């Protein structure tokens, strides 16, 4: 009996809802929460001269015709990691997490014949800069960007942009610190003279981009060549103007369904093909002057935040996509 393998994390509500639909359509699946893989499952990868075989519980990898990579799971919060925390100033836990990454790598490579929804290898080889290059190649408009470690370069770039620029993390936005002192690393507006008064000549390479005057933000869920788009009216609210993730809970931004122009749809399909992705959440901005500007794709993005306000039933569509790949 061919099965679907779901790689996800404990307590992921979106996975639960998609699984409800898989049950409804009566298909076989195995859910693995990567965060408790080691505690709750038996895994073995035997390699000898003649062949190699990966087994998860009673299943061999060849039983899984389809693999859905929904979420990485936070290994950091697994039991093993919590126990090793603070031992030898975290050197042990850092070693463990490298070991674990190597193991996950081995696991994913063993699925040579399976069809993927969200191919792990494509995800791992896609950083923000590569995304911008591919998007531009696919005909999408992108923000003018500079990554530099040099003050002079930064000043010149800001001059060229006539002062309107933002700085954002090259990897992921983060919040850290102590409960009393929280630091939020997220996109920030830069003042015109920011780098002029900067004392250091060299710093960690930083991503600077032109600031786009937003009309609306677009969040697009992409699945097997279809786009499900949502417009976010974040510019109505000072608090969410630069980044809608500065949620205003009292008066949430308006989230409504959106029809993308045909040319943009075509370019997005083209971009996703270049990136080797059959699903992902794409962030774009429609500027006041009518430009549609690509910002980034998050292959494992939360589709719940698009599905629910727009009533798109993406949970069911994902289930159907997986079933489709089985046949």
């Amino acid at each position: 009996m061919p099965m679907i393998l779901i790689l996800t994390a404990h307590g992921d509500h979106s996975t639960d809802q998609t699984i409800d639909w898989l049950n409804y359509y009566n298909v076989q699946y195995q859910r693995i929460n990567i965060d408790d893989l080691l505690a709750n499952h038996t895994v073995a990868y035997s390699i000898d001269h003649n062949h190699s075989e990966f087994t998860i519980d009673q299943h061999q990898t060849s039983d899984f015709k389809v693999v859905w990579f929904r979420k990485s799971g936070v290994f950091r919060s697994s039991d093993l990691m919590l126990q090793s925390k603070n031992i030898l100033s975290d050197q042990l836990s850092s070693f463990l997490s490298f070991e674990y990454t190597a193991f996950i790598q081995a696991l994913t490579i063993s699925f040579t014949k399976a069809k993927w929804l969200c191919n792990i290898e494509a995800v791992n080889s896609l950083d923000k800069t590569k995304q911008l290059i591919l998007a531009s190649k696919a005909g999408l408009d992108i923000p003018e960007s500079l990554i530099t470690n040099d003050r002079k370069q930064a000043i010149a770039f800001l001059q060229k942009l006539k002062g309107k620029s933002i700085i954002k993390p090259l990897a992921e936005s983060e919040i850290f610190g102590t409960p009393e002192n929280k630091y939020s690393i997220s996109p920030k507006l830069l003042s015109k003279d920011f780098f002029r008064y900067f004392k250091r000549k060299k710093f960690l390479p930083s991503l600077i981009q032109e600031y786009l005057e937003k009309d609306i933000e677009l969040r697009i869920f992409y699945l097997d060549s279809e786009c499900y788009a949502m417009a976010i009216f974040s510019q109505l609210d000072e608090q969410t103007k630069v980044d809608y993730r500065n949620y205003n809970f009292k008066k949430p931004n308006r989230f409504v369904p959106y029809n993308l122009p045909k040319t943009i749809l075509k370019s997005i399909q083209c971009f996703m093909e270049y990136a080797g992705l059959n699903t992902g959440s794409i962030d774009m901005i429609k500027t006041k002057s009518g430009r549609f500007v690509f910002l980034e794709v998050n292959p494992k993005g939360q589709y719940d935040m698009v599905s629910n306000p727009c009533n798109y039933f993406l949970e069911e569509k994902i289930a159907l996509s997986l079933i489709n790949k089985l046949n």
Partner: protein
Amino acid sequence: MGNKYIRLFACCLIVKGNRRATLVDLQRGDFIFLPLQIAELLLQSNSVTVAQLTSAYSEEDAGEISKYFDHLIKNEYAFYTDEPESFPLLCLDWKTPNHITNAIIDYDRNSFFNIRDVVNQLEQLGCATIQFRFYDAFDFSFLMQTLTHVADGIGKIRSIELSLCYNPLISKLQYLKLINLFPRVISVVIHSAPDGYDYKFPGSIHELRYIQQKITNETHCGFISPEYFRANKYFFTESLQFNSCLNRKIAVDKTGDIKNCPAMKHSFGSVFSTSLLEISHQPDFQKVWSMNKDKIEVCKDCEFRYMCTDCRAFIPDEYSKPAKCKYDPYTMSWA
């Protein structure tokens, strides 16, 4: 703004009543009233510009209309745009992968059916929400036992609402222990209490609601009042097609009878002799599911109809509005 289009945000939906309309904000969970004429204009507004909309009106009336529109814009119910075709209407479909979505289990000191057995059957049906209503005071170990039945299941049941009878022997801390042990408990109401108040556990998001009302049986239900109105997408879209209280609900009353609702007279069988699965697939059992507000007298002309939880237990006849509703949409007044 004359040559622009005015567009409601897709989550703001007009419901026309007999004398006025409501504009229901599904995202922010609220509603406002609109005069019927304004509602009509807004319903045509994606195909004609604001100037065209108001062209048939006198200058004075057109001024009034623009004022209304500005009010909607300012309060973020609507926006002006040059490209209305980019902003489609909200899809109003409602569907669920689960055969049964919610259940009520009633129990008092004379009940003797097996709760664990009922819970197991509900899991098989995919039921996500259970409401337990206890009419008599039970001790702490009984509550623990009941919730353990749910926790031991296959995880289909995702939320539990408790309506309990006041028991002076159970402390607030014990209730907190219960809630912490069973995170699926999303609300606890304690009736027949000496005082009525909401108690918030310090340093926790959880709370207990004490009410003085004595809830001794299933007749304490079915009240219609604005404080029970619900403006959200799930409820609204379900109400468009289905009965807003009974759709995909199954109930076991205190004697073990299987019903659409414990307060309804008709029993489809008893848990002692038949299964919830069997009953829930009977066409007769499902008949009331499709009784939406558009089929109910009076309600079908009411501007609250997709926010209002229906009741089919207390009605003079099949198509009457709930007997406990005091609203008259023809005069726009609450009796």
